[in-house]
């Protein structure tokens, strides 16, 4: 089935099974492999992308349901070879080790309200698991990014 998708501001037409997971369509049909598969069960958040600004697990979304919606993935962050401020904040704070959780963490962080408290950051990232870095550095990075946002 031909589906029209909007991803990171670009229009694509893909020929995929409508029930194909958005995660697989992004990785296999659009070669956007930044979005990771951790658990494939909605538990880990590694596959988090934004649909019309809301964080979702791409491993639980059939591609047909995003027709007409704006999808944003980690590839949409950097532009012209320049890192997004959120990516810069992750680097500055040492908030990534193996990096598997990182794209999902960043997409979930992007959906946070601008003036989030630490409590809100923790709640907003509760659906994203990290097995190596530990959460404090990740919260620090996100807090730094959000603080910059206020200025």
């Amino acid at each position, binding site marked *: 089935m031909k589906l029209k998708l909007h991803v990171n501001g670009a229009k694509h037409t893909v020929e995929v*099974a409508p*029930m194909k997971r958005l995660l697989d369509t992004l990785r296999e049909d659009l070669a956007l492999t930044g979005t990771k598969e951790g658990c494939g069960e*909605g538990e880990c958040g590694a596959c988090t992308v934004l649909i019309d600004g*809301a964080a979702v*697990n791409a*491993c*639980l979304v059939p591609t047909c349901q995003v027709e007409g919606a704006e999808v944003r993935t980690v590839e949409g962050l950097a532009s012209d070879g320049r890192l997004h401020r959120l990516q810069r904040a992750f680097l500055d704070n040492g908030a990534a080790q193996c990096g598997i959780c990182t794209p999902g963490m960043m997409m*979930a962080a992007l959906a946070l309200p601008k003036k989030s408290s630490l409590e809100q950051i923790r709640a907003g990232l*509760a*659906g994203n698991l990290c097995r190596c870095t530990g959460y404090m550095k990740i919260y620090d990075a996100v807090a730094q990014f959000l603080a910059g946002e206020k200025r």
Partner: protein
Amino acid sequence: MIAAADLTVQRPRTLKQALQLLRDASAENQPLTPMAGGTDLFVTLNMGQRPSARYLDLWAIEKLRGVEATGKRGLVFGALATYTDCIESKAVHKRLPILVDAARQVGGVQIQNRGTLAGNIENGSPAADGVPVLMAADATVVLRSIDGERRVPLAAYYHGYRKTERRADELIVAVEVEVPDGTQRFDKVGTRAAQAISKVVMAAVGHRLAFGSVAPTVVRARALEAYVEAGGRDVAEAQRLALEDARPIDDVRSTAEYRRRVVANLVAAWLGGLDKPPRTR
């Protein structure tokens, strides 16, 4: 990876089209499986199981979205109302604040953005978190087929483990609640606050009490409710009566013994707060 090529899906834009498709499919004995946020269905598919090869996607039916306040204490949840919709609704905060508590504890934000109350109900898990809240609030499930509508009390919606009242040609189109008076309380006892399936859930609205994860379906604690309604306040007796309806088993998440103790403790805490004025926000 799932074998998506073997699965078909229909995507009606209107409720009427959806109901007609359901009717035609069940007339041919090839029922369609409704799909909302997919947070239960896709977990099953990802595990390599195939609950069905034919789906009816409801996500594009705009009319089924959102939460509406009616009258002085009513709430109507469209079939596509998500946990996030509940968290963001002023009316839900005011009238049924324990549903906001429950919604905030369902999965993470990603699940809250997609998971629906109707999906939580129809999925039929005894460990569902939205269901006990709605059941304690005397919610009504509105089922519709192409021929018309019928209303079923949520407390009478389950016939056994994952067996619901819904016929193959019906959809849940809404969930209606006239929130009863009285103190509200929600307790979810699990391994971790977020992203964990509960070991025991208790929801209370006034004298109405529902438990999750203690029986093949979410259950009302009828024996205890009758006792309290008649003025009974003895803790030991209340705990004994709660366990007439709450009959937990051992499973991967917990043991029957642990669950019985949690039920008893929650009942004691609930009784202690029962005659205090209802909390406001």
